[in-house]
């Protein structure tokens, strides 16, 4: 490594240089905006890959019987779809948004640890490259579901599980470093006067999300390590013959997994809390209670994990504890929804693309939240568990929840990134196609679930046929409409009317005080913060 990287001129004006030319800009960058962009592009690529897998699944499920793929491959598709969407699409998208926006929102020159930031990103393409490589290995890719319950994922797994385990380790390393960077940035890099309670909610939600990541990603690393030991070193963590317990896997996994699902929704709360006030032209209602509710949801997420396992035969006391604790999550979540609606109340609303996505988020996420409340009722959950009702529930919170919030965020901040005004026509077309597609896909799943269709099956009994066909049609509408999004983003980068610094009338916050597109380096000297947040 040459030491020429550091030169004397950096002392004088090292923030003035623009981006490097060519590929080296992306490989070697330390700039939070470049890294944010890479995260977002990576996430988009994974979204399309994972989405294609979903379309394979939906195509097979269009009719009863086996038409396109064999059951073994079908299981690989459901597993990879889940893993890629969770770890490759949603999480990197939020990290990308944090990279772009957090320093700009708090008036920092960059992330706290810029080189480590680039490392966090570059691990991901390799980790997912390795994961995707398993598709071509003997025995195929992981086929035990994204929750990889032992012993299906240990004793009975294909050889490729070893690579899956190491890929998860790499993702964990990346996430933990990314989260540490965000925590350090938020706690240490705020401009003078940017007190904690003046931070935009997106920053707050990310701070709490980062804590969740640091707390639970190591637990995931722990559980996959135990799997590795059971597979290759003869331990008996998940084997009763040696005194272990397959259910132990599920406890450790969901201790990670439940906070993980909040990792995928808390930043979405922050995004929506930025967008709704902008387009309602009214200050966010109940800022403080929003912060507290987020913290409270994060805390509760650590003591409800076993509601994913009501049917494993826990002792009654455990069952009751997790049922009561889970039901309580409805309270802070409700507070958030009520606050958003109170923000709209007596506002002066307009409905640009970001707002449409944000409003759809509020409605559809609430539907997902309500079905979540139904799932919390343990006796009823015995009937819902592992059916399409659950599939409907978590897709409602993740697709029109997490994914719509990401779309909303991209549309909201795209002018700031590219310097071009949004193509509202294409944006709205994309929104309506997605909105219709999502509902056609996932709403019928509630019914097939209640009627008794288990999840993760490649073929089903005849009474589920009609709704499955509808869901498959919806999936293709939703999937194809994402191409409009891709087209729209690329068009916006290449051309479009010049956007102003504050391109949305009602927008507030430091990011709107810098020109559009945002200069390569922002806030090399800290801005002065006014009293308002």
């Amino acid at each position, binding site marked *: 490594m040459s030491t020429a990287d550091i030169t004397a001129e950096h002392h004088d004006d090292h923030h003035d240089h623009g981006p490097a030319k060519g590929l080296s800009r992306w490989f070697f960058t330390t700039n939070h905006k470049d890294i944010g962009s890479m995260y977002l592009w990576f996430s988009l690529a994974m979204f399309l890959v994972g989405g294609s897998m979903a379309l394979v699944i939906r195509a097979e499920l269009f009719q009863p019987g086996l038409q396109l793929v064999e059951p*073994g491959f079908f299981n690989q598709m459901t597993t990879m779809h889940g893993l890629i969407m969770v770890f490759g699409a949603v999480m990197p998208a939020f990290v990308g948004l944090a990279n772009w926006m957090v320093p700009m929102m708090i008036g920092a020159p960059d992330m706290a640890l810029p080189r480590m930031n680039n490392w966090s990103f570059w691990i991901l393409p390799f980790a997912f490259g390795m994961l995707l490589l398993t598709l071509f290995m003997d*025995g195929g890719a992981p086929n035990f579901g994204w929750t990889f319950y032992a012993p299906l994922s240990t004793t009975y797994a294909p050889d490729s599980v070893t690579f899956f385990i190491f890929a998860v380790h790499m993702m964990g390393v990346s996430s933990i470093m990314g989260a540490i960077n965000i925590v350090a940035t938020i706690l240490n890099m705020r401009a003078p006067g940017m007190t904690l309670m003046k931070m935009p909610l997106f920053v707050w939600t990310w701070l709490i999300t980062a804590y969740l990541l640091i707390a639970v990603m190591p637990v995931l690393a722990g559980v996959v390590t135990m799997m590795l030991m059971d597979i290759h070193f003869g331990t008996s963590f998940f084997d009763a013959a040696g005194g272990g317990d397959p259910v132990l896997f599920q406890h450790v996994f969901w201790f990670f997994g439940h906070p993980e699902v909040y990792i995928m929704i808390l930043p979405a709360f922050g995004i929506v809390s930025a967008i709704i006030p902008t387009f309602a*032209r*009214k200050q966010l209602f109940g800022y403080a209670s929003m912060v507290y509710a987020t913290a409270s949801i994060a805390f509760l997420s650590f003591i409800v994990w076993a509601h994913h396992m009501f049917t494993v035969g826990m002792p009654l006391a455990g069952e009751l504890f997790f049922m009561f604790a889970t039901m309580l999550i*409805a309270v802070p979540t409700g507070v958030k929804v009520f606050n958003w609606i109170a923000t709209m109340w*007596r506002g002066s609303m307009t409905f640009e693309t970001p707002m449409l996505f944000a409003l759809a988020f509020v409605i559809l996420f609430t539907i997902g939240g309500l079905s979540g409340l139904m799932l919390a009722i343990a*006796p009823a959950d015995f009937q819902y568990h*592992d059916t399409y009702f659950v599939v409907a529930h978590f897709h409602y919170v993740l697709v029109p929840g997490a994914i719509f919030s990401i779309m909303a965020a991209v549309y909201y901040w795209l002018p700031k990134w590219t310097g071009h005004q949004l193509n509202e026509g294409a944006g709205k077309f994309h929104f309506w196609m997605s909105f219709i597609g999502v509902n056609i896909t996932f709403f019928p799943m509630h019914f097939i679930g209640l009627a008794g269709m*288990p999840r*993760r099956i490649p073929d089903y009994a005849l009474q589920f046929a009609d709704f499955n066909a509808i869901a498959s049609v919806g999936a293709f509408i939703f999937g194809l409409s994402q191409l409009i999004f891709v087209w729209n983003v690329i068009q916006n980068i290449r051309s479009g009317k010049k956007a102003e610094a504050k391109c949305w009338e009602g927008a507030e916050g430091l990011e709107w005080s810098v020109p559009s597109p945002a200069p390569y380096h922002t806030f090399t000297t800290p801005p002065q913060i006014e009293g308002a947040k």
Partner: protein
Amino acid sequence: METRKNILRGSLFGALTMPSAAFAEWGLNMPVGVTEISRSVFSLHMTIFWVCVAIAVVVFGVMFYSMFHHRKSRGAKSAHFHENTTVEVIWTIIPVAILVAMAVPSAATLIEMYDPSDAEIDVQITGYQWKWKYDYLDEEVSFFSNLSTSRDAIYNAEQKGENYLLEVDKHLVLPVDTKIRFLLTANDVIHSWWVPDLAVKKDAIPGFINESWTIIEKPGIYRGQCTELCGKDHGYMPVVVEAVSKEDYAAWVATIKAEAAAKADLAGKTWTLDELMTEGEQVYLKACAACHMPNGEGLPGAFPALKNSPIAVGDVAAHIDIVVNGKPGTAMQAYKDQLSAVEMAAVITYERNAWGNNTGEAVTPNQIADMSWDMDRLMTVGEEVYGKACAACHQPNGQGIPGAFPGLVGTDIVMGDIGAHIDIVVNGKAGSAMQAFKDQLSPEEIAAVVTYERNAWGNNVGDSVKPSTVASWNGGEK
């Protein structure tokens, strides 16, 4: 009366959620079911559902009102309020109250579900990849239940029947109005046993037992499926419960026991290669084809091929061993608990002769039966048989009574040629007190006692006799 009210309430809720009769056929909602528990669950489900609907109507109502009236295009000017502690307290307390109201009946139902005491019938349910095994613990009745939908139906080569994927070869038959306790476990990976109409869903965990129970109130056939991803054919392991009257249940138990006895007799019959091949193909398609594929080519990397494989064309003993005992640490199960000796013999014969394997070897049920007779078992049973049939003359310590009955310790007959030893026990020794035991003892007993004699009292020859050798004994010529 209470029951009727519940049904009424259930159907009322049902009617409200089913806009038309056609939808009812599609099954839009959770089934009300045929047990008290399933009705409580259904009513919990509908209550919470309507609570959610009510919340949604209020919340979205306010939201849509606001979206319509507080639009900029209608000239709305934004207000400036951004907090109101009273409202916030109210919308915190109301959800808490609703939740507490929901928690009470939920906890009550849950507690009831967790009480399997006083059951009249215990059924152990074991999940296998990919079938269920049912053991009626009080009746010594035990059988496997396999999917009976044909591969052709699955691959769209023939019309799909009404119960496509929800039909099995053997139903779990249960009496109505009887408390039945289920003991759930699994042989390989985690499965989950679910019958919606009974509102019973419980995971079957390998190495552990979960309890559940039901009292079915109405005769009928209730179908469900495995609900925990358990590998390739997770979608192909349905559950079918047939609830019958108590009398019919007793009759069914008697029939199935008679069938089992008849099947045991089949093992003694002489099987030709052709018969074994015909039977073997049936068994193969049911028990093996899911992994090793109907053409014997397996799935590369996941399940090995049998066509031309070292196991299927190599040493027959190794082949029998892997089928009988499975291969620990892999998906290959031990079939000794799942298939009868006849079925295993047939399927091994089939595998050794199908798809061009053509070894020409037929494996007999007796060879399979031998597998369960290892040295320990031969010695244990042998000692017992010896005490009953031989000790009177040859004495318990094998020393015999000099001049009357020869000793068996270190003598030629027990230390020397094994054929001669078998022969003297089977056919006796003409002109002596040594009887022919072939009519008194079963081949298994003879094999055991010969083995015992050759290894007890310091004889320690180390060899053993298999029952099949004895059964086919025709005077020493092999």
